[in-house]
């Protein structure tokens, strides 16, 4: 399970990334995340919707009601240009973090941390 802080930080970029593939709706977004995390991340509606509303206020995404074949209404979300710009920015930051962890944990041989001499008192 991911910690609260990590979820808080990662929800927005994840939503943006999912929407960058095309329009989508709340329940399906939750399903996508669950599927891709192999069931590790289980978002609830109560957690996702406030985030979506907030992002809409920030003009990162837009929404519209769509009638499905069954005649039901569903609200679809779409990424905006501002959202795409934000996503690029987020991506760079996450990749940077990722690079650091990779070199720290991934390939110990190539790692060349400066050795720190601890003076003996």
């Amino acid at each position, binding site marked *: 399970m991911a910690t609260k802080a990590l979820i808080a930080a990662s929800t927005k970029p994840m939503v943006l990334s999912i929407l960058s593939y095309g329009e989508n709706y*709340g329940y399906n977004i939750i399903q996508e995340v669950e599927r891709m995390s192999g069931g590790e991340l289980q978002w609830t509606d*109560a957690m996702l*919707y*406030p985030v979506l509303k907030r992002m809409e206020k920030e003009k990162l995404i837009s929404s519209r009601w769509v009638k499905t074949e069954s005649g039901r209404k569903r609200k679809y979300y779409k990424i905006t240009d501002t959202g795409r710009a934000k996503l690029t920015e987020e991506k760079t930051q996450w990749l940077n973090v990722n690079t650091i962890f990779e070199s720290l944990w991934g390939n110990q041989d190539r790692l060349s941390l400066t050795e720190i001499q601890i003076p003996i008192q």
Partner: protein
Amino acid sequence: MSTQPFNVDKAISDWQKALLKYHSIDPEFAEELASGLRDRYDALLKDGIAAEDAFARARKKTIADPNQLAREMSDVKSRSTGFLGDLAFLLPNYLKIGWRNLGRKSFYNLINLTSLTIGIVCAVLAILYIDYETSFDDFVPESERIYRVGQNLRSQEYSMIGFEDYNSSTAEKQQIHIDAIRKATGVEAACQFFIFDNPQYINTGEDRLETTKILQTNTPNSFLELFGWEWIVGSKEQFTNDPRTVLFTESEAERFYGMDWNADKVIGQSIVIDTTAFTIAGVLKDVPSNSHLDFNVVIHQRRIDYWGARTYVKAANGTDGTAIKRNLDLKIGEINPRLSRSELFGGFTLDRLQDIHLNSDKLYEIKPPGDKQYLYIFSIISSIILLLTISNYTNLSIAMNASRMREIGMRKIFGASQVSVSKQFLIEALLIALLSTPLIIVLLIFIIPRLNAFMGVAIATDFWAQGSFWLLLISLLILVGLLSGLYPSIFLSNRKITSLFKGNMVKDRSSSFTVRKAIITFQFGLLIGLCSLTLFVNNQLEFISDKDLGYQKENILYVDINSNWETFTAFRNELNSISGITGVGTGSDMGTTPYNQTTYRLKDTDQVFDDAYNVYFDYASLKLLGIETSILDYLDNPLNAPSNIVLINETAAQKLSTQFNIPKEDLIGRTIIEEPEYTDEETGEVGFPFQIGGFTSDINVFSLKEKITPMFVRVYRQSDYAYLASISYDESISETVLQSVEAAFKKVKPNDTFMYEFLTQNVNALYEQEQKIGRLCVYFSVIAFLVAILGLIALTAYLTTLKRKEIGMRKILGASTLGIVKLFNKEYLPLLVFAFFVAAPVTYLGVSRWLSTFAYRIDINLMVFLLATVLTLAISSAAVSLVTLRVIRSEPVEALREEQ
């Protein structure tokens, strides 16, 4: 188990409805959540879970805790409205309440409105005035790169530079002079010209009118380019190529050719200026009033008929005045070879074009330079008035809104934050400020033309047509609104809810009292300061007008005679036959602006001084001016007097006497050599020597701002030429003197214009600025008092109304009316005393700075501060007593009855 089949649609719809009881969940969002629930339910059904169970699971997964969701959504909603917060919902409510309160408390709000209007009008006027004064010469393209070249000679700075041979420089020499300047490193362009103030006749064939401010230039192209004068019509090529062509300004064209003048009527016309023929090549737009230059006609001619020229250069990009000054100084040998050999020459001076109006005070400025003192006075006093109005508002608003504590309490119960309540009161302040707009505009339309006339400025009278004005006004209104609403809004908003329902806060002796007192103290301080400032300024002005200048200034008339001695004598004889005329002479005029000084040394000594002025009088004018001299006999019997005699003034006598340790009496007969740096090439004589023939007392030829320096008074019986006739007359004929003198003038010079000045006018003109400052101070003080008293009246009225019960009780207990009035006055006395001790030192500093600009000035009498304080006390206690009496005597009048 249930017998009824499970109806999922109904279950979801019930669930959706239940969500609606949370305020932050709107119907649309509930629908979306329901749609999500349905998606989840459908998915669970597919996995083969029974309908009822699927619904229960889906519901739990969708929203485990509705409370938490509602809270988060409310967070999203309130945050999303951002800076404005709940304003979108509450603004109409605020405006409604604000507006209704305006009506309910109309008496107090009227006072607030009036004082805010006055404050803002003063501030707008100050800003428009300062903007005008600092906008001088901004219309010139790239004005920041343009400099005026002047020169330093005999330790004095001139606003122009002389030609090598002064008046007799040829056109070629003048051209070499300007070309050398142009060649100096860093100079991109340069022009020279001179503007003649004396009127000259221009004859167009149809009209013959006098015109002043005729500009002569021999660098027409540079002159036009550098200043970028706007053309209306005409040929620039013709003007720059052909000497003897002229340009008219628009108003000059109108004057000569009528309002309906057109290019055909004007361009190419031949005119005669004085005696020379010219052709009109074009018409320029009038020179903007905020220019340090002014001219009506521009003449292109090869030679400037003057000893020097006004010279302006445009600096190349990347260089500045200091660099150009250096380069010009290096080139002095080319520019003016004779000056380069002179010890008197102290180098060129460069003034930035934009600095000339406010920062230059050189000899022979074109227009009297602007006075930064005005800018300071305007901004300080208008800020004071603005502060008074703002503090009025603050005080009244706290007092008035005390009755609204319950409203604030209710709002807080409904969830209003402190910020939200502050916003409400700020908005009310803004509302009042904005309401004053129409009145402000009307007042400005009324005042600006009068201000223009009074200050001699030209602030646009159609200010309301300019976008920038509205920007200024609106920002001022908002600023004033915010400033005046700031304290009340904080004060009213930061109380605990439970304390808001506990009665009236004016009654409790908490912070409101000290703040109100602090504000009144502050207002008292401003009043004492302003009042004493006004008293000092006017004392100094009185001192100036009463000070013995060393000569008689009443009943003396100067007439421009500009003639040879014979004509002057004829004029004098004509005048002497008029009864009541007591003396006629000729010589220097008194009450002028400083001019060039001269160098000198006492013969047989080495030290050269450069601080003396020469003044010239014939015996008659020296006598009629009543100047005290050591040659009384000669004045009484001019026929016994030598044809020439030079007297030195007291200051010169003292200086020479102490410098060389010679008793004053022994100076008589000693020789002074003027301009010792000059040697006559033919005779080998050094300078211009003269013998000291006697002494005069010190006389203030210039303004009292100038310290008296050594002065050589050259007295003569007769000279070749007379410029100015000085005429003294008896008080009894002061009504008719001008007429009879003009008649006499027309007899000897029938074709010339009669030009005259009264000496008192000359002297007064020297203090024109000071007189204006004095009057401004009075006006402003009156306004400031008005505003402060208005505030004090309203506040007292309000507080006494609130204390009606207390007053009633006191009366029942036997207090006299006088006693109650005293009681209310007594509250202000300690505040006044405190204000005195703060205001007096601050004003002292300000006044002594202003006084230090005068060489002769009053002492700062501390009693004046006391007087100002007593005056403030008298006026404010009169106001307080009147209001209190009104409340005590009668049932409270309708206007005052608003709070119970």
